[in-house]
């Protein structure tokens, strides 16, 4: 027993130092290179990590297929943009405000929808995001452009660090939840909700908690985009692609794992950039769609499972949790 504990500690230590090393390297990126395309690439990857990881909590760990994640990303982005640019408050306040707005919004509109189970939840969230998209295209039809003064001094580097900060924060929070009682409860809900309820898991409260945290993190991810984007149309923030990209990244990477969405995001952005050089835009979505179907049908663990199979690690239990 003592030996196993020791081995576990050592493995934890290894994981921790590896993650620390990666984060350290990521902090150095803008110092090493000044190429904007490279920094943009890193920025996009980090944005997708934050967004897909936030979906992973509700969709991956709790198994509730939320097809309206764009609603919360959009609410966060729009609120952050307004607080920051139009009300002139400092950026950290705006980003936090974006997260809170997404959560409050989830409470008002999402809460009743969350009483819905299974297929009704899927349809309800899908339509919710669609309503918001249409409403915002109608009430805010004009592009929201950064003022000239800000555009003149626009620099990618603070945007990059913000995305790094929020991506790391999101990953840490989800990692912590996945190891907590809450995470265990969520996974039991995913496997069999009735059985979970029967074994004393307060399924409604757990799902609600997961939904709150997930939407808050999605709102923060929206804040990254609000700070980055020079111009956007409000309706565009609620476009279903924000949901769908997150869903395919999570599934292709490895649903219900910490590393899955990270690998998925790197792969997604890489593929998007490479394919857009040779093929008409959007074809990476089709490629990912095919991968997605393959994963659902034949490889439920995603790329992570594939990688662990290759590495032939013996400690199977660790990856199955």
């Amino acid at each position: 027993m003592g030996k196993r504990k020791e081995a576990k500690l050592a493995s934890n230590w290894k994981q921790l130092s590896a993650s620390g090393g990666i984060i350290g390297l990521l902090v150095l990126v803008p110092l090493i290179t000044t190429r904007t395309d490279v920094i943009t690439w890193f920025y996009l990857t980090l944005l997708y990590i934050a967004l897909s990881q936030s979906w992973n909590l509700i969709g991956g760990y709790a198994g509730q297929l939320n097809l309206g994640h764009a609603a919360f990303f959009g609410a966060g982005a729009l609120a952050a943009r307004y607080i920051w640019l139009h009300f002139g408050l400092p950026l950290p306040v705006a980003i936090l405000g974006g997260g809170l707005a997404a959560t409050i919004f989830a409470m008002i509109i999402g809460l009743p929808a969350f009483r819905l189970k299974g297929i009704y939840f899927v349809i309800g969230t899908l339509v919710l995001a669609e309503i918001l998209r249409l409403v915002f295209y109608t009430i805010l039809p004009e592009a929201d452009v950064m003022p000239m003064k800000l555009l003149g001094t626009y620099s990618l580097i603070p945007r990059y660090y913000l995305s790094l900060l929020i991506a790391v924060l999101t990953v840490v929070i989800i990692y912590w939840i996945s190891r907590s009682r809450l995470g265990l409860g969520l996974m039991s809900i995913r496997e069999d909700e009735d059985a979970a309820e029967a074994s004393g898991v307060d399924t409604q409260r757990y799902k609600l908690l997961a939904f709150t945290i997930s939407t808050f993190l999605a709102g923060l991810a929206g804040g990254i985009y609000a700070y980055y984007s020079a111009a956007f149309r409000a309706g565009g923030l609620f476009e279903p692609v924000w949901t769908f990209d997150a869903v395919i990244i999570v599934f292709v990477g490895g649903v219900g794992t910490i590393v899955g969405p990270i690998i998925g995001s790197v792969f997604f952005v890489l593929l998007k950039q490479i394919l857009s050089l040779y093929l008409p835009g959007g074809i990476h979505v089709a490629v990912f769609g095919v991968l997605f179907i393959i994963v659902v049908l034949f490889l439920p663990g995603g790329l992570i499972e594939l990688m662990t199979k290759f590495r032939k690690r013996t400690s199977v239990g660790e990856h199955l949790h």
Partner: protein
Amino acid sequence: MIFILVAQTLVNGIQIGAMYGLIAVGLSLTFGVMKILNVAHGEFLMVGGYIAFWLFTLYDIDPLWGLPLIAIALFLLGAAFYQLLFSGLTKFHEEIKMKNTLLVAFGLFLIFPQIARWLWTADERAITPMYSGESFPILGIQCGYVPLCGLVMAVVVILGLHLLLTKTYFGKSVRGTTENWKSAKLMGINVERTYLITFALGAALAGLAGVLVGMTQTVTPDMGMPWTIKALIVLVLAGIGSVGGAFFAGIILGVVESVSAIFMGPYTVALGMGIFLLILMFRPQGLFGKA
């Protein structure tokens, strides 16, 4: 004058609603029978619209004459996709089956628009035979030929479907499978084949609806999702799995939309969805479902 306005609005609403109904019936059929929520339903609709467009522009075949061809093509396409992707998933436990088939359909929904953009470009297409846009007056109400054809077609197709489900052996096997597929299998019904045909029928219905959409509106690679959402709304209004109810719910939605368009303008679409969310929350079994 006000009478004509009201009557005209109602007529328009019923004609649009029949189209909504036709779209939702296919979705309702696949969900009701096999518990597969085919979110790629709108994609089959898009393919139907494009085939009609092709037939019309390349071979000069009138879209209404092309209907049987399109139904057959989409039937085969649906059967192929079912066999390739969905048939392996039907053996799972119901909840897993529902989730995995939904995800596979979601994957299709991602792929189809990209392929369509590659095959047919992103241009908006419309199928415009000679008589499109022409109309005739009844009691001062203008009644377009194309929407009227659509209404007639929708009614004929749905009556046909109703007869198929209630009067034939196949219909019996579908109803048996819907109620309890295990017992149906024990009674000697070929459940696999019933599933295959039902899914293919759903796709064929979507294709037929696609022709109507192409004649009254436009066909684009990204049209799938808005129509899937419309069909989902109708589905929930009717109560999930109720095939007959789906048609009437479609007509109700069409009328509500065209009446509210007078007052609400661009917010009409959001209104339909708002009603939908309310129904979902307070009467999840739908308007025509059993409590």
